[in-house]
């Protein structure tokens, strides 16, 4: 039985290879010529598109997002290089690269306080503030920030996005490298409407051993993410990054 499968398996592979060769018998050069022609037409079309709609991309959050999603589906990255078509013709590059710089600046400014952990909402609020009061400066969305951060990761300086469990809840951005384990992120994600916890709460919620809880807490304190509030009654631990996140959600300004 096995031998049969083996031989027919090889036959199958040969058949597929033959088909593939047949399809791909055209020269690579022919394909390149075709690409070159399409490229020129595309360039012209992109330029007329830019003339008509360049402003829309800059100002319209939904349109920009639609644009980004279509690019992703098609398989192009409009932000890959400032020398890329998209960037040159539509100016998407400048929009996102400037946003990237603003994000880094906000994170650097707040990291001494929150240890490099900030909620996406707070980051968005502060970036909008940094951009100024004009309407167009305010047209930055969560999606834009996440895309800019995705680009920032290439620089390898520790930018990570911490997603909430089941995609429901706060998104956190970590801007200082420090590997948060699954335990650490579990604690963070469990605090959707609070910014602090006690050891008893962790024990009850996760059923972890005291040893495990202590290890997690100690690490985060060392990293500067967690502060201790020893108010006499019981010890509370809180995340400055989440503390400000709460205020932002409640609509307070930062």
């Amino acid at each position: 039985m096995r031998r049969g499968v083996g031989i027919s398996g090889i036959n199958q592979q040969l058949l597929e290879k033959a088909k593939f060769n047949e399809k791909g018998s055209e020269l690579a050069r022919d394909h390149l010529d075709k690409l070159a022609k399409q490229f020129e037409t595309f360039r012209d079309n992109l330029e007329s598109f830019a003339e008509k709609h360049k402003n829309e991309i800059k100002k319209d959050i939904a349109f920009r997002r639609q644009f980004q999603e279509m690019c992703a589906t098609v398989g192009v990255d409009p932000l890959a290089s400032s020398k890329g078509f998209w960037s040159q013709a539509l100016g998407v590059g400048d929009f996102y690269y400037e946003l990237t710089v603003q994000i880094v600046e906000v994170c650097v400014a707040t990291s001494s306080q929150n240890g490099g952990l900030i909620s996406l909402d707070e980051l968005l609020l502060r970036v909008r503030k940094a951009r100024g009061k004009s309407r167009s400066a305010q047209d930055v969305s969560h999606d834009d920030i996440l895309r800019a951060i995705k680009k920032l990761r290439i620089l390898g300086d520790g930018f990570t996005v911490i997603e909430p469990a089941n995609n429901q809840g706060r998104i956190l951005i970590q801007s200082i490298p420090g590997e948060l384990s699954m335990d650490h992120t579990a604690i963070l994600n469990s605090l959707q409407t609070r910014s602090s916890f006690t050891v008893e709460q962790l024990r009850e919620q996760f059923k972890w051993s005291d040893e495990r809880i202590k290890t997690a807490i100690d690490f985060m304190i060392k990293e500067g993410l967690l502060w201790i509030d020893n108010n006499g009654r019981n010890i509370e631990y809180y995340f400055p990054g989440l503390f400000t996140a709460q205020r932002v959600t409640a609509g307070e300004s930062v």
Partner: protein
Amino acid sequence: MADRLAWTDGQLHVGEVMITSQNGVSINDGSEKTDYQKGLITLTSHRILWQDKSAQIELPLSVVIFSEKKDASLTSKARLICTLSRGQEPKRPGPFASSRHDEIQFEFREGGCNDFLRLIQEELVKKRWLLQPVKSTTTTTMSSTTSDRSHRTGISGIENHLQHQLNVQHQSISGAFQDLNKLMQQAKEMVNISKTIATKIQEKRNDLTSDETIRFRSYLLSLGIDNPVTKESAGNQYHTSLAKELSSVLEKALKDTNGIMTLSDAYCRINRARGYELISPEDLLNAAVHMEELNLPVRLRVLSSGTKSFELTNRNEKKDLQEIANLAESSISMSADQLANLIGIPVIVARERLIAAETYGLLCRDDSIEGLRFYPNQF
């Protein structure tokens, strides 16, 4: 008007785009509470979707005439109020058979009302569901809403204004989306051709000359197509000239930061200095990898932790670490924060420097809950 809500499977229709979502939102029929509390509300270009563990409900945007916010009070958090039209089409199965009210209120228990309001108002102006009618029974609601408008005297003034705005914007928005679609089709074709060429190159069935290969790479770069072929961007003119440009800018900056700088820091400085025609993070990295081979005064260095940084090529590692050990000695012990503050370098870099000094045998570590500190090595 809660009878306008209908059951749904939550799947996005063809052409429908998700805009935003928010947790902790409850549905009220008029101002009355319903059983649908604290769920996830999602705004798309065509509908409002709501879901929790037990139910998934939708409300087509085409029946929303108007939306506004009611501020938080003692008894409730901020609410989004949607005034709905009375439809004449057959009612679709939903959670409520009938309703006494003209509006639905969404209570945002966990915030997010302001943003949601802004986005829904944008969608109500754009009316994208008219561009791409969704394949469901909502097509019938569109004609009935227009005839309904005359019944609503109080609201009609606002509607007329919205309608006017729509007529102005409709042209440009629908045009923009159509043009975008066409553009993307073309892009897609080119991506496919590129894949074919790339496969041939990879399989060594490549009959392209080196000039042709360079041309191919430049197409990929322009279009932003990610491809293993572009990864070896050896001799790419843009990146080599960028490398030279960056090197001279960074050389000056590095003198102020003690000879070493993280990539994000460099990226910010460079783009701030440029002001326009900013470079992408990839551009920076691609330029950086060429610096050493071009014998430039600045080079890329990968630290032991994997973090990358820029440094002056003529930095003397040993001398540098000895200085750090001396600083540690004069303050008895040193933490990364302290060092960072003292000589004005980022904390990550300071940490790495201390660890490097330790590797050289110049410092010893003391790891406690109060943090990592380094002492001069007495051994």
